[in-house]
């Protein structure tokens, strides 16, 4: 059984991930994504009628908290170390119009 993912969907997903794909890449990825999804679809063949749904790998683990106690931050210098662009103690990014 092979799924197909049309190019419009691939384009949309690429846009959501801020990726720019050319026509050839769209072609390639629509094939690859279809293959991946078909593979994942195998999971649907398992009978889960008697399995309780969970959102976490370790189903028995619940209520893991930390106390509201300060831990030292790493500081601006360390935080900005890997940033491609900075200004003063700020991260610098391409201009963003207000709102999202």
């Amino acid at each position: 059984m092979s799924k197909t993912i049309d190019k419009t969907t691939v384009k949309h997903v690429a846009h959501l991930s801020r990726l720019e794909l050319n026509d050839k890449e769209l072609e390639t990825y629509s094939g690859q994504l279809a293959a991946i999804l078909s593979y994942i679809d195998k999971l649907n063949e398992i009978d889960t009628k008697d399995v309780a749904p969970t959102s976490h790998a370790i189903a028995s683990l619940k209520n893991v908290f930390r106390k509201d106690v300060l831990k030292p931050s790493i500081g601006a210098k360390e935080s900005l170390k890997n940033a491609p662009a900075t200004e003063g103690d700020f991260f610098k990014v391409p201009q963003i119009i207000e709102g999202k």
Partner: protein
Amino acid sequence: MNYETVIGLEVHLQLSTNTKAFCGCSTKFGQPPNSQTCPVCLGFPGSLPVLNEEAFNYAIKVALALNCKIQDLIKFDRKNYYYPDLPKNFQISQYDMPLSYDGFVDISSGAKRKRIRIKRVHLEEDAGKLMHPAGENYSLVDYNRGGMPLLEIVTEPDLSSPEEAYDYLTKLKSILGYLKVSDCDMEKGSLRCDANISVRPRGETKLGTKVELKNMNSFKGVKLGLEYESKRQVAAIGDNEKLVQETRLWDVEKNITVSMRSKEEAQDYRYFPEPDLVPFVVDKITIEKVRKDLPELPEAKTDRFVKEFGLSEYDANVLTSDVDFAGYFETCARSYKNAKTIANWLMGDIMAQMNTRNAGIKELGLTADGLVALLKMIDSQAISGKMAKEVLLEAIETKKDPAIVVKEKGLSQISDSSKIEEVVSVVISREAKTVADYKNGKKAAITFLIGQIMKETRGKANPGLVNEILKKKLGE
């Protein structure tokens, strides 16, 4: 045609915990940019978020105070979007199993009471802060705010006017103040409000085209923004213009709303369960314990003030609107029996001072003992009511105790009859002509004589005594 407005509000509240929602970074306001960041709140690979227990407890407290049901199994989700205020490209939020749901807040708009349903209260993390240097083609990001614990409190579209929206916010802030979970400071951004607003012909059951309104930085701004938007929408329908579902910003300078005009694609957040956080379950016993430990909330306090102090419901409502104000009143009422007098002073001169100084009762610096001492001085006629008002102002201005102000200014009222008699005699002999006028039937002349006496005593003579003694001396 007659239109009605349909409004739903979404409030974001920063919880006043010491540390962020999922890491140990400080939540202190106004620190140097990016000084309060770590691998977790910067979303570095391999870092693991762990939920702040206090933030969770605060959230449960707020949920219960807003009469919400607590979800059996609480789960966090990732809300995915690309925007530089999110270092991870997703926000840890809650989607289909929010912390709580189905609550309500009762508001009174004028004389009308109304129940506003709360759709959900959920916990999430705040985003960082973007700055846009003027004239430059880049933006700057500060992640100190990123990861701060945020409560989202969403109403059903139950508000039917900008006034109701304002009253709801006031009530909500009042309740939150009692719970002491946030400083609720809109200027600092610890309380923010977005609105959904649409209009429809009265009687119509289908909702109109909804506009999301943002960028309102005060409760008054919310009201003005909604008023403008409701009028704009009704006018557009009248002009046969097609309304579009969009986000608009309130422009506080121009007093208008402006379309964001961004080509907004349908929002596609691709929520999915946050695999780094386990689910949370609050057992019934804990829920009942938290509920029992909730402080007395504004409504209960209002009822008690009416019963215990014989106040009108209006007075009690005003006094209990702020937890500190209510506490101040009660402290005064413990050592001064006339509750109505305290209420009058608090709601009159003192509240006026709070408003002009944009200060809470605590910042005003006038102690409850100081106010009671002042009221007792009026009762014993040591000072007049008029003097007391001046003393109050001076006490607030100089942050001195009212009793000390009275002493320093030599303001004590003269209630010693023999002293007043002396002054009255002096004035009567000096103003012989006016006295003659009075005796010849020009009764109004007495006002002038009283004025002269008050002037002699620099306003300090007890007016009642002056009147009495003067009339006696004039032979009545």
